[in-house]
């Protein structure tokens, strides 16, 4: 397929502003007469708040908001799921602190320093409650309950044994399936809590408006959900709530939900009757969210010929103090599991447990890297125990074209129509030299190299033929200006992955307009239709899907106006890009001499008072196609120091048509770094005596790999499978989360191939490697 701009490497629309420091992020917003807000956060993991003395702070001129001052609304900050499947357990400020670092009181003053000093003058009387910090003890009958009751939709429900929610799914007859197996492998895996480590901490700025409304500038992945939730909590009509779309300094999923400081900022601004700005410190942020940890017990039955016949997966998730998206997570984890291999008959049980820790939420992959680590480690274990080649064993059992894919749990499914799994596994094996891979027992010496494979996927959006538990559609407005340039208004947040450029390219391609003559408009919730959120790797497939849909309507209108001018039937007209003159024209099919530029059409439509060539509409994608990935990674383990280096990595992706190929490669390479962090470095550990993070909220003791730990760029190879997704804009699927999902699994499999030690828990630190080598592994010194 040949395209005019799709698949071309072109300058980012926000590139110049970003490299010149001119791009506006929420923390850059300055509103006249604004105050600065800070929060007082709980020092205890579990404590009732008996009283709050704000007199000293108020005497310093500060505005103080306590739990008594906020609306008595219990909500869930993530409103992506339909209301009846949404668990609600929190208020803007709680009457009981449930984790260290939970905001209890908010303070605004003329400067941030004064606000901070006033905050320290507030006296809170706590009744300290026994904390629940250990997943194993959380469900004991004697464990302190975090909640007596919470809400599911409109129903009040009781919480028993700190179980927040659970999902149990059976497909076929797993027991009969296992009975057919020649070999059964069962293992337990554990994935840690890690911090999102997005560059930008959270900001909220709220300006109360004279009409009783509010304008909000905030760090978010969804301006419309923030708007609706603020309207609901504070009882303000949506027509008076406006949330601005701004650049975001990375998110990794940490802003899918309305960030905790946004409603706090609104409460302060409404009480102060002045604009208020809040910028989280890094420690506020580390104490605000984390990736879902997971403990996964997996059992798989396989026949002698390598056919899988049954599987059983039991998942426990320590979700921390609130339910942000635990219930959909458990469904999604079931889906990632169900869609990796053809288990035939299988069972799934997922349980989310409340503890007095930082609330966990989605982070790049949403349960997928966790499930992938268990399943892809397991596939290697089975292959070794049964004597299968790991690549061939995967090829024999993977879920591919014509199979059903669970894009967002058991209620969002569609049939796979494009798939590059075989191409990627064959190509990757060839590129890494799989045929020459030696088993670990043939290796000795201090430095040992190993090669690992893992494959995975993520969904592209949460659409499907039927409405499921998750809301998914997007909107766009496109208009052709009177000189033939084009304005695109999209509510879709670009999290840095290039969704904005993709939207511009889609419009340019449909209308045959040069890339530089299409621009993204600054927008907000008042000027755009609804978009659910940039999550679930849906920006390009769903967001740009809507843009494609609306661009087609604009094209129809353009051809109609051109037909009137040229006195031709619009059906007899087509669009073309004239490279020599750098203009876009409408011409008679097969007869280019009869033509008019689209700028002339738009100008004449204005002069003749026909109207603007524009359209607004929404689109729901009816599919959730998987974007597949495969990782072939080589490691070098220093058996004397336990240090693991990655001398070589092959990153393969099936993203359909790569609309921004440079940024697809960027996603894959960036995710290699994050996956290395997940495999080898990161964990936010708790002091179980105090409930505090061992890093105290500081990145000094919360290290992630940087460019220094990465392989040299020449040693990273990126490969795109040759696929075309028939339901995506110009054949495109997503990539963002897929890029990460099998990295840690491939690293762990490579470590096994190097030293013959299977790690069931990440991060695989040098300390753990040395300990394992001493405790049974063979040491070659």
């Amino acid at each position, binding site marked *: 397929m040949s395209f005019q701009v799709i698949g071309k490497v072109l300058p980012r629309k926000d590139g110049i502003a970003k490299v010149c420091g001119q791009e506006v992020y929420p923390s850059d917003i300055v509103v006249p007469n604004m105050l600065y807000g800070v929060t007082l956060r709980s020092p205890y993991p579990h404590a009732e708040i008996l009283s709050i003395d704000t007199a000293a702070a108020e005497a310093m001129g500060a505005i103080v908001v306590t739990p008594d001052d906020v609306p008595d609304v219990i909500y869930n900050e993530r409103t992506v799921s339909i209301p009846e499947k949404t668990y609600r357990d929190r208020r803007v400020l709680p009457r009981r602190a449930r984790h260290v*670092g939970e905001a209890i009181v908010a303070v605004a003053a003329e400067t941030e*320093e004064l606000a*901070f000093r006033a905050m320290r003058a507030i006296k809170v009387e706590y009744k300290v409650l026994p904390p629940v910090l250990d997943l194993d003890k959380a469900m004991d009958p004697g464990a302190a309950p975090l909640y007596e009751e919470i809400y599911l939709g409109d129903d009040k429900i009781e919480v028993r044994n700190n179980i927040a929610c659970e999902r149990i799914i059976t497909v076929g007859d797993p027991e009969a399936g296992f009975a057919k197996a020649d070999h059964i492998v069962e293992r337990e895996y554990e994935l840690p809590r890690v911090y999102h480590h997005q560059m930008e901490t959270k900001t909220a700025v709220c300006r109360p408006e004279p009409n009783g409304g509010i304008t909000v500038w905030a760090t978010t992945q969804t301006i419309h959900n923030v708007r609706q939730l603020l309207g609901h909590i504070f009882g303000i009509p949506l027509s008076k709530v406006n949330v601005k779309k701004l650049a975001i300094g990375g998110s990794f999923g940490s802003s899918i939900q309305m960030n905790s400081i946004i409603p706090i900022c609104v409460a302060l601004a409404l009480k102060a009757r002045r604009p208020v700005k809040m*910028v989280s410190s890094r420690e506020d942020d580390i104490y605000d969210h984390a990736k879902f940890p997971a403990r996964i017990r997996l059992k798989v039955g396989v026949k002698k010929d390598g056919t899988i016949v049954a599987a059983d997966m039991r998942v426990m998730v320590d979700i921390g103090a609130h339910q942000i998206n635990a219930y959909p997570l458990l469904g999604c984890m079931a889906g990632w599991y169900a869609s990796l291999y053809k288990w035939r008959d299988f069972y799934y049980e997922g349980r989310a447990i409340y503890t007095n820790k930082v609330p966990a939420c989605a982070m790049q992959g949403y349960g997928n890297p966790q499930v992938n680590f268990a399943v892809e480690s397991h596939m290697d274990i089975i292959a070794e125990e049964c004597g299968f080649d790991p690549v061939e064993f995967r090829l024999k059992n993977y879920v591919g074209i014509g199979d059903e894919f669970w894009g967002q749990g058991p209620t969002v499914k569609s049939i796979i129509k494009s798939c590059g799994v075989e191409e990627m596994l064959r190509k990757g094996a060839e590129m890494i030299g799989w045929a020459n891979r030696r088993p670990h027992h043939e290796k000795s010496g201090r430095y040992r190299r190993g090669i690992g494979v893992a494959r995975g996927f993520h969904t592209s959006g949460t659409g499907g033929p039927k409405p499921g538990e998750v809301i998914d559609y997007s909107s766009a407005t496109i208009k052709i200006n009177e000189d033939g340039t084009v304005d695109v208004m999209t509510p879709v947040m670009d999290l840095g992955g290039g969704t904005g450029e993709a939207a511009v390219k889609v419009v340019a391609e449909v209308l045959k307009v040069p890339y530089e003559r299409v621009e993204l408009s600054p927008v907000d919730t008042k000027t755009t239709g609804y978009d659910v959120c940039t999550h679930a790797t849906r920006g390009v497939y769903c967001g740009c899907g809507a843009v494609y849909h609306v661009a087609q309507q604009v094209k129809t209108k353009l051809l109609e106006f051109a037909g009137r001018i040229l006195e031709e039937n619009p059906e007899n007209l087509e669009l073309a890009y004239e490279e020599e003159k750098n203009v876009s024209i409408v011409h008679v099919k097969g007869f280019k001499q009869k033509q008019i530029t689209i700028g002339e059409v738009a100008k004449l439509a204005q002069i003749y008072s026909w109207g603007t060539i524009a359209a607004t509409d929404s689109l729901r994608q009816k599919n959730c196609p998987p974007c597949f990935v495969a990782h072939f990674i080589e490691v070098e383990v220093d058996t004397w120091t336990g240090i693991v280096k990655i001398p070589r990595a092959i990153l393969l992706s099936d993203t359909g048509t790569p609309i921004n190929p440079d940024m697809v490669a960027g996603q894959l390479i960036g995710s290699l770094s994050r996956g290395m962090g997940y495999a080898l470095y990161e964990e936010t550990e708790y002091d179980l005596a105090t409930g505090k993070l061992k890093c105290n909220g500081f990145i*000094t003791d919360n*290290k992630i790999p*940087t460019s220094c730990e990465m392989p040299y760029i020449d040693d990273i190879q990126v490969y795109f499978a040759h696929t075309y997704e028939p339901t995506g804009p110009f054949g495109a699927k997503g990539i963002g989360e897929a890029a990460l999902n099998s990295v840690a699994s491939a690293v762990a499999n490579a470590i096994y191939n190097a030293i013959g030690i299977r790690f069931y828990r990440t991060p695989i630190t040098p*300390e753990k490697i*040395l300990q394992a080598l001493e405790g049974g592994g063979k040491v070659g010194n």
Partner: protein
Amino acid sequence: METNTKILAAEFQYLEGQDLDQVLAWLAEYREKARILAGGTDLLVKMKLGHVQPEYIIYIKKIAALNYIQYDTGNLKIGATTTLSQIERHETIKGYYSALYEAVRSMAAVAVKNMGTIGGNLGNASPAADTAPPLLVYDASLKIASKEGVREIPITEYFVGPGKSVLAPNELLLEISIPEIEADTGSSFLKLGRVAADIAKINVAVCLKRSGRTCTSCRIAFGSVAPIPMRVREAESLLEGKELTEDLITLAARAGAAEIKPITDNRSTREYRLKVSRVILEEALRAAWQRAGGAL
């Protein structure tokens, strides 16, 4: 939370020293109430965390007389406010003082090195200070001034405990002085962190002199494995006057690792430090020996 790392919450008086006498007079007057500010890469962090709350901050980076690297008579003299970046870029240090160069190169990120100073690294007196092991093995001496006068001490007497040195509240570190590196001498520094730009889990420096195949003198210092950066004298004495062989290196490394007293903290475990200090000492010894022109 009691911190806000965007804010220096406590009030203090900021004093900017224009010359040494003025700074020493302030120190004599304010003593424990004052803190010296140079690069601020340690002090400001501690202030933000509320660990120290000085009433007076005395800024010394404006005093040009404290910022120099001199290499005239064979001795290397480094002024206390010389930044880590200046040291890293200095050709003589890069060419002759390998352990110091490698230590500074391994430290932090560029922005921190552009601000942080060698005097500050010593003044902070962290057991993990990366410049400490090289200065210990070079037998450096420190020039320390107060209003009463100037004294010079060997660096081996400088560190007292975690975050503690012999600097009195009225004293200022002026200069680090390193004796001439003789011919057939080699030095090296190695460090393990969690990631590249990190505080050390373990660091080690070696400086040895060679005569033919014999190691005539050797100094070894570890950091981050005891309450202070420390010399390991038993290991040193095992090597001195001996013909250097692989076996001897192994033996000395074992002895060195047996002398340290590591703890488990956020960066690593006691067990790991005990095991791996031996490994990196072996490597540091080999590197220093080779740089001294020796073969194994």
